[in-house]
């Protein structure tokens, strides 16, 4: 498991209060209990804090659209990380 996924697993466990949750890229709102509109916001805030990033309204909305999974969040963080590295 990559570093991003390991940290996301910790975030998911804390936000959804499930210490046994195993992070996978195909996790979605239907497969994680509590990943409703409210849970989504708590997930975004916790992710932003864990990775030191700020997601935009469009990105947050896209993450909640049908067919989008936790893998989308991973790719978003990877893009931010590579953009940050390019700037640095």
């Amino acid at each position, binding site marked *: 498991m990559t570093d991003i996924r390991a940290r996301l697993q910790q975030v998911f466990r804390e936000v959804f209060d499930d210490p046994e949750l195993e992070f996978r890229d195909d996790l979605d709102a239907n497969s994680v209990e509590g990943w*409703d509109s409210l849970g989504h*916001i708590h997930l975004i*805030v916790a992710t932003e804090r864990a990775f030191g990033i700020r997601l*935009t*309204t*469009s*990105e947050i909305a896209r993450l909640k659209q049908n067919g989008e999974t936790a893998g989308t969040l991973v790719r978003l963080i990877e893009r931010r990380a590579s953009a940050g590295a390019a700037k640095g």
Partner: protein
Amino acid sequence: MSLLHPAMFLLLSAALILLSLERVGRWRGQVLLSLSLAFLALEYEFDMASLGALAAMVGVHYLTVRCMLRTASPSARGWLFWLWFAPCLGVFAVLKHYQWLTGDRVARIVSPELVTVGLSFLLFRQIHIAVSAMHGSVSALPFVEYLTYNLAFWTFLAGPIQRFDDFREQFGRLAGSASVTSRTVIGSLNRALLGMLKMFVLGRLLQRASGLEPFLADPGYGSLARLLAAYPLYLYVNFSGYCDVMIGLARAVGFKLPENFSSPLLARNPVDYWNRFHITLSEFFRDYVYYPLQLAFERRGFRAAALPAAALSSFALMGAWHGNRAGFVVFGLVHGMGVAAAFGWRSILRARLGKDGLRRYMDSLGIRIAATACFQLFWVLSFLPYQFDGEQLGRIFATVRTL
């Protein structure tokens, strides 16, 4: 223009005939745009004030977004967004003729039909594109695609609200796709026919039953139940029928629109309801009002206030968007409180019952039936300020007291 107007059939027939011609090929998008413009001219009966307001709204937005796309700086894009959005919202409020905002001081400028539907939905599509451009999620804005997205005859009046990237993907496939087949057309028209049956048979029956006079003329628990239930059911049947028609028409011309309803009568609480009723609208408000507001509170550490503040504000706005009386805002506020209460109740249950207990609670058939029945009562009562003004509500309550 009614869906049963001969011009609507002519328009659809022209679309299907033209799209079935091989030689039309890569011009299919332009054909659909031309037919959509013809639809608008017919819909608003060549009223220059209405068509002019529409053209101005589209033109100003298009130029603003083009400027945003040429601007590298995110903060400059943000300024451009607000320079467009703030005056646009002001103009929209004037055109919408909000009684509680302007009274009767402002005369109606454009056709009420254009504002009630039409412009109200156009504003959603424009906000969606502008916010996406501000965040760099839109990189190009081809003119024909942009115009067709905003003015398409199958979504212009009342949605469903399709996302721009989804639309672009389908628009891009138009030119290369095979001609329209009779199988596609029959399947699509089946859906449209189902919608028309809902609108013009069941909907009309419910509409007739939904008036105030039958209850006042013959007060009783039966007529009260009919008064409460008929109007919300009419709205649901009529609008879901309309969406069936539009989803069918869109499919016939090559577009797959998002579904707008998913058995809302089975909803067990307000959160569940807004995931089932007018889905594309509630997703819009969720993404563009509720999430940003709640995030703003949460990021600043006001976690306890975040949910109620965001829910009340976004539902009040959603209510105001539905109509120009203060009763619509009350309707929104009632649902906002319902949503906040449903989330709060779920948190309490989770804390008391634990994860497995909550799952058993949610899966229990008895609880589901009781919750659905309670919510349906909440639902029909919430429509009272939506349907009736203060004077009518006073007469209803006075009559109920005599029962």
